[in-house]
């Protein structure tokens, strides 16, 4: 690779800067639509992608600021990020569908910068999985105004909940010790699963008329609001799929018109064990970060070829960092690991851009590098997702929000 990666000046990346007109010159434009360009130009104006054309290196009289790099892709979309803390979930009840994680986010948190450094421009922020049904997640940009509302791409995008042991961890029966806050249900996996079914049946049979979360549950059961269920292990994945199939088949739900829920299984580390189960119901999956040594959370085992297995089985899937701030677990690295497990580049790119965008219902704005979409772009020093490749710049809505550590070594921006 002889091309020098980037030529940027030390721009002061001001907060809330106006979007600029950019000309991005690269050796490779990976659009994510199957149509890729060699020596291409991506033009940006008014915060949107205005053109994608061949012709990098030619004389150009546009008054745009020029950025040069080896490659450009659409900004990465992380469907599993949690830039949240313990105060993001209301633990005084096990089921709190109506509470919004957007009300708990800190627009000033440093986590946003970390995401930008990794090329992630759009994320799903979810409550921490201490509740069975934790509440409403939000899709938002990682860079932009210092206001969650102004950065939101889609409010109330997803209903978030969990199977497995995490919602019951720390709970205990009141018997035998002083009553405290965690003398509460559920205490087991079965209890967690029961809470889900209880909430769904109560909604279908209208037994929770007074419950402030009812409207949210109705929307979820009608398929208007995707349900993201965390399930790491095979048994929890099964429980989630069977729950979906129960809702689809039981007459109570059909009678109420609440039998078309859209499930997405998050953190499905063991999805490789029974891919046909997911293929059967066409239940999409979000994968957690690859562990360094086989086992990951909930003692689940995650195979290196899990992405490849899902691809071959026809199960839609996205990769994610699952909220980890660990450099190893950054989203771009996950795409690289999935490729190491046998997945092709285009599929790996889709798994960190267009597929999560579609799962989150924001594909009309982000996820591919196409004219008219939001100017969320990642500039790479080499082939994206390769171990030696760096993110050299990240643009969100036409604003340069991050420039890589080597960027300042280049010449002044050519005009």
């Amino acid at each position: 690779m002889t091309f020098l990666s980037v030529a940027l000046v030390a721009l002061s990346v001001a907060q809330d800067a106006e979007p600029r007109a950019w000309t991005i010159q690269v050796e490779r434009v990976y659009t994510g639509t199957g149509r890729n360009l060699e020596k291409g130009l991506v033009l940006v104006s008014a915060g949107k992608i205005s053109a994608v054309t061949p012709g990098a290196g030619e004389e150009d009289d546009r008054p745009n600021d020029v950025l040069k790099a080896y490659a450009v892709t659409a900004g990465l979309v992380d469907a599993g990020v949690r830039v949240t803390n313990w105060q993001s979930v209301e633990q005084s009840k096990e089921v709190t569908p109506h509470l919004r994680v957007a009300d708990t986010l800190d627009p000033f948190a440093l986590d946003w910068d970390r995401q930008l450094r990794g090329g992630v421009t759009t994320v799903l922020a979810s409550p921490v999985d201490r509740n069975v049904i934790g509440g409403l997640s939000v899709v938002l940009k990682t860079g932009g105004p210092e206001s969650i509302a102004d950065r939101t791409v889609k409010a109330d995008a997803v209903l978030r909940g969990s199977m497995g042991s995490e919602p019951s961890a720390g709970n205990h029966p009141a018997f035998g010790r002083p009553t405290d806050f965690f003398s509460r249900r559920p205490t087991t996996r079965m209890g967690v699963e029961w809470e889900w079914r209880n909430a769904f049946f109560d909604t279908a049979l209208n037994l929770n008329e007074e419950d402030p979360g009812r409207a949210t549950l109705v929307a979820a059961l009608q398929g208007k609001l995707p349900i993201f269920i965390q399930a790491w292990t095979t048994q929890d994945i099964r429980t989630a799929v069977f729950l979906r199939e129960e809702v689809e088949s039981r007459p109570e739900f059909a009678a109420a018109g609440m039998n078309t829920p859209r499930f997405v299984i998050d953190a499905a580390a063991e999805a490789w064990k029974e891919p046909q189960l997911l293929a059967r119901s066409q239940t999409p999956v979000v994968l957690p970060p690859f562990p360094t040594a086989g086992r990951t959370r909930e003692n689940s085992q995650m195979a290196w070829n899990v992405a490849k297995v899902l691809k071959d089985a026809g199960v839609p899937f996205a990769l994610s960092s699952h909220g980890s701030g660990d450099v190893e677990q950054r989203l771009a690295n996950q795409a690289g690991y999935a490729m190491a497990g046998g997945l092709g580049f285009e599929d790996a790119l889709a798994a960190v851009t267009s597929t999560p965008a579609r799962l989150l219902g924001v594909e009309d704005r982000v996820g591919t590098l196409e004219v008219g979409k939001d100017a969320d772009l990642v500039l790479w020093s080499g082939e994206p997702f390769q171990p030696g490749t760096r993110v050299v710049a990240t643009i969100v809505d036409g604003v340069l929000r991050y420039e890589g550590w080597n960027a300042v070594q280049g010449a002044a921006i050519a005009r």
Partner: protein
Amino acid sequence: MLPILLAFATATLPAISLPADGPLAIRAKFVWTGGGRVLENATVVISGGRIQAVGTDIAIPEGAELIEHDGYLTAGMIALHGATGAVGETQDSTRTVMPEARVGLALDGRARDFGLLRDAGITSILVTPDASGVTGGTSALVKTLDGIVLRDPAHLSLVFSTDALSSNREPTSKSGALALLNALFTEPRGVAAEARSGKLPCLFEVREREDVGRALAFAAEHELVGTLHGAWLSGEMSGAIAKSGLSVIVPVLGVGTPKRVLDAVARLEKDGIVFGFGLDAPWNHADAMRFSAALCVRAGLGRQAAWQGLTANAAKIAGAAARTGRIERGLDADLCLWSGDPLDLASRASLVIIGGQPVSMNGAASAAKESQR
């Protein structure tokens, strides 16, 4: 007329007795009115507990006692946050939502701690509910003498910081706290309804800038008025705060406070936001509030802007601008004589007057007053 040269008054109190009811004239080298005006060699006449006249060419009424002061005369300061007189009584850990609770009813107006405030030149204090719940009720503005109430209820306290949360009771989360507040503000009666109608200002308890953002959004949604307390960096969001019309109470600052924080306070002045200073008495020394303002002045805040934050604007924030906070005809005679520039840390309060009554001299609550208790 007996001119009393205060500069010579010694610590042997009460060597001089000042009239409590008769007319009193104070002639000082510098008079800070609190309205931003500085008068030189001006006279203030008080009687019946009120300020009767202020100016440079005031005739001293017949029979009035005269104090000649070779120093500064200002309105008494107003501390905007604290629990003096109600320590331990401003919260209820078994209830996190108790909007109708009134700090004003939990208060011992004759608590000894008020003497410390008087000695420091503080003549009124806003006693505020504890921020350990979602709402701890309403605040009260009282004088630091005899529990004289200026305004009760003064504000409805609403907590947007994580102080409202706990891991072992509702709410554990910011979203849960917000849900409780939203539920409170749908009630047709009670103090929340009064706040919604604009009759009762709110005291928004915040710490981080994210809390300020949430409080501003909540205030806009429910059309609330009031003041933000507790965020060191609120000045960095001064644009949004200015739009909201809310005022700001700056928490106590210290010598170790980062410059960024002091700069943020200066931005409040630049963007025209009304601000005052909190003290969180009795946990902080009574002088800490004046020292906070002095630190801000050292970092670039305007001297008179700082002083107004301690007096006139503090009165505005507490809803008592018609009673106290400035030296102006008709207002309560809540005054302080200073040995030097009040924002000079070496200066002391030489004489403190509340409602026309001398209550503290040379930093010692008047022995005459104390002996009555």
